[in-house]
């Protein structure tokens, strides 16, 4: 254990003093901020006001559409304020050459688009013409507005008072979660899971692969021969894993600290104003930390194994793509697990060490699975980390002594049997 500690400490101290550590410490949040804030700023400055024309032979149909679109966005709980553009709507009746005229306006960008409503055989046909046919959010907004307008036209014609008709369209479903027999509010399960996935993904991409690099470095600097004369490959791998892992955790912890400090005033304010029912139970916080750490260690161990297979960082980079695949797989499956957290498939997947960090956390956050399942999943993750380290150190030991080319599969099998 002393040797593991000595090796881990060396790795940690050497890395924390590097420029690379500082650069990624500062650079990454900057890039993230740019990625998140950039589009918002761009959206604000350009496409956030939309001037459209509604063309209908029946103004009774066009008016409610225009009203709904022009209504202040805060009144609409369905759409987040930031995402919905502000509309300026003009109403027109169909006229000869109107379509050609409007099309030219759209082309010249003096108009964002026009909605052409047409009755044919008693069925309403609505076409929206613009420079992009792929704005799905806008399609949603327009569709809702047209449906509402159509329905209210019918209801008004049937004699329902206007105020009553208006109230019909104000229904909104809020997703709330029941935990331990009480309503704990609408915590964003999916949100916090996505956050975990993001953190894991990024931590692994930025720091997890460092373990592999460190193993390769050990090989190319040829120091392993001195090291192996005193420590076992297993001690060496474990030490590297812990040392480089601790660097990764330090970095993520610093990022999160910054994130929390920056976001806290906003979140607390929102909570005080009752806008978000923000909730994080101690169990969730713990599950988050444990899943993150175990996931990070598991993938770092994988990286160490890849590192022990190759002889240069270039080769390692080619293999690193395999690291992200189980993560991507977990993300693809996450929707499935959220909707069916107790299905056999979900349970099985949440036991699989490569997927467990994400999928077990998902299951813990959407419902509380039986304790034994959580315990088993964590135990399997630990066993997975140990197993991969064991495998990596065997490959490493034989690999470094027979360096030269990348091993073939049969050679690899022989290495594993070698003692």
């Amino acid at each position: 254990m002393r040797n593991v500690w000595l090796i881990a400490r060396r790795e940690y101290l050497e890395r924390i003093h590097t420029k690379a550590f500082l650069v990624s410490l500062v650079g990454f949040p900057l890039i993230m901020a740019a990625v998140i804030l950039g589009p918002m700023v761009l959206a604000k400055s350009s496409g956030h006001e939309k001037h459209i024309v509604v063309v209908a032979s029946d103004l009774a149909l066009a008016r409610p559409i225009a009203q709904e679109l022009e209504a202040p966005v805060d009144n609409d709980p369905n759409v987040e304020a930031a995402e919905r553009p502000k509309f300026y709507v003009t109403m027109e009746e169909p006229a000869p050459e109107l379509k050609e005229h409007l099309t030219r306006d759209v082309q010249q960008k003096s108009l964002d688009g026009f909605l052409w409503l047409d009755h044919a055989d008693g069925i309403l046909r609505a076409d929206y013409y613009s420079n992009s046919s792929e704005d799905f959010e806008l399609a949603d907004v327009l569709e809702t507005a047209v449906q509402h307008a159509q329905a209210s036209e019918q209801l008004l014609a049937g004699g329902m008072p206007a105020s009553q008709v208006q109230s019909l369209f104000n229904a909104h479903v809020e997703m709330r979660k029941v935990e331990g027999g009480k309503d704990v509010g609408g915590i964003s399960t999916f949100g916090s899971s996505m956050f975990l996935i993001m953190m894991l993904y990024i931590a692994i991409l930025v720091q997890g692969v460092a373990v592999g690099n460190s193993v390769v470095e050990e090989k190319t600097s040829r120091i392993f021969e001195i090291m192996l004369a005193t420590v076992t490959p297993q001690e060496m791998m474990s030490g590297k894993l812990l040392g480089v892992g601790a660097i990764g955790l330090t970095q993520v912890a610093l990022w999160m600290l910054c994130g929390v400090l920056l976001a806290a005033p906003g979140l607390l304010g929102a909570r005080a104003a009752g806008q978000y029912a923000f909730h994080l139970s101690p169990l969730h916080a713990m599950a988050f930390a444990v899943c993150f750490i175990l996931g990070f260690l598991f993938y770092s161990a994988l990286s160490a194994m890849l590192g022990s297979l190759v002889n240069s960082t270039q080769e390692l980079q080619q293999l690193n793509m395999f690291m992200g695949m189980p993560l991507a797989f977990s993300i693809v499956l996450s929707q499935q697990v959220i909707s069916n957290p107790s299905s056999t498939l979900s349970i099985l997947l949440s036991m699989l060490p490569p997927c467990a960090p994400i999928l077990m956390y998902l299951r813990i956050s959407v419902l509380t699975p039986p304790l034994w399942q959580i315990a088993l999943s964590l135990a399997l993750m630990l066993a997975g980390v140990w197993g991969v380290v064991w495998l990596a150190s065997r490959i490493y030991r034989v690999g470094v002594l027979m360096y030269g080319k990348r091993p073939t599969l049969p050679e690899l099998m022989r290495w594993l049997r070698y003692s």
Partner: protein
Amino acid sequence: MNIVELDRISKAYDTKIAVHELSLAIEAGQMFGLLGPNGAGKTSTIRMMIGMTLPDSGTVTLFGQPFTRKSLHRVGYLPEERGLYKKMKVLDQLVLLGQLHGLKATQAEDRARRWCERLEIAGSLDKKTEELSKGMQQKIQFIAAILHDPELLIMDEPFSGLDPVNTVMLQDVLVELKNKGKAVLFSTHRMDQVEKLCDSICLVHQGDAVLTGTVREIKSRYPKNRLRVRYEGDAAFLSHPSIAEASQSNGTAEIRLRDGADPQQVLAAAMAKARVTYFDVMEPTLEEIFIETVGGKANA
């Protein structure tokens, strides 16, 4: 008690036999030379000695016990492939390696400073390894191998790439350690170093130990068939039937006798025609024995 005992160890890699039934023993206070041309199996033998690879057959005994990793604290190893952490400072590096060998940090630092002074590299203690020359790095590694005062020193080609001054410096250290009772093994293909330093040798050729024993005993196994004669006068005695080969310059002749020939006869023949001022019956050098044994592959 032998410090190292290898009993008929063998190791085969995929395509070739690296070591074949090799046996040797090293005692405390002995300087042992592991000789052989490149690729003979020296490094493979050393790696099995310290448990980095396991022999396919045969046994390794260190300090009178079958090999265990625990024994490694009593072994100092200088690998043939040199390597240090490039970005690490020399002192930190030596302290770490000392600690891994079981020293306390303060103890390791103390000894590292002392050795660096002795080997005249104390000025580099605070430098990063990558800033040092190859020779200096080699001295650092040498120190790393002896820092924990091991009872057995295993040095794979310790002097390769060093200038004569530094070679002598390290040789002196090794001799000093040997005189303190440590067992020292070093591998080399330089016969002159072995001749000068070693008590015992093992000559490896293509995985086989072709010669093992003390230098004295090995040399006595070979006939003393070389003569050096200084003379004044007629050189006609050089065509004496006992002489297989002779060369001369400035009145000194180097002579190789035929097998079984008696040097006294040559001396008599020389004295009959010339005035002999110097006559020496020389032992064969290890290099000659080496070349004779492995068939001229010493520099292969």
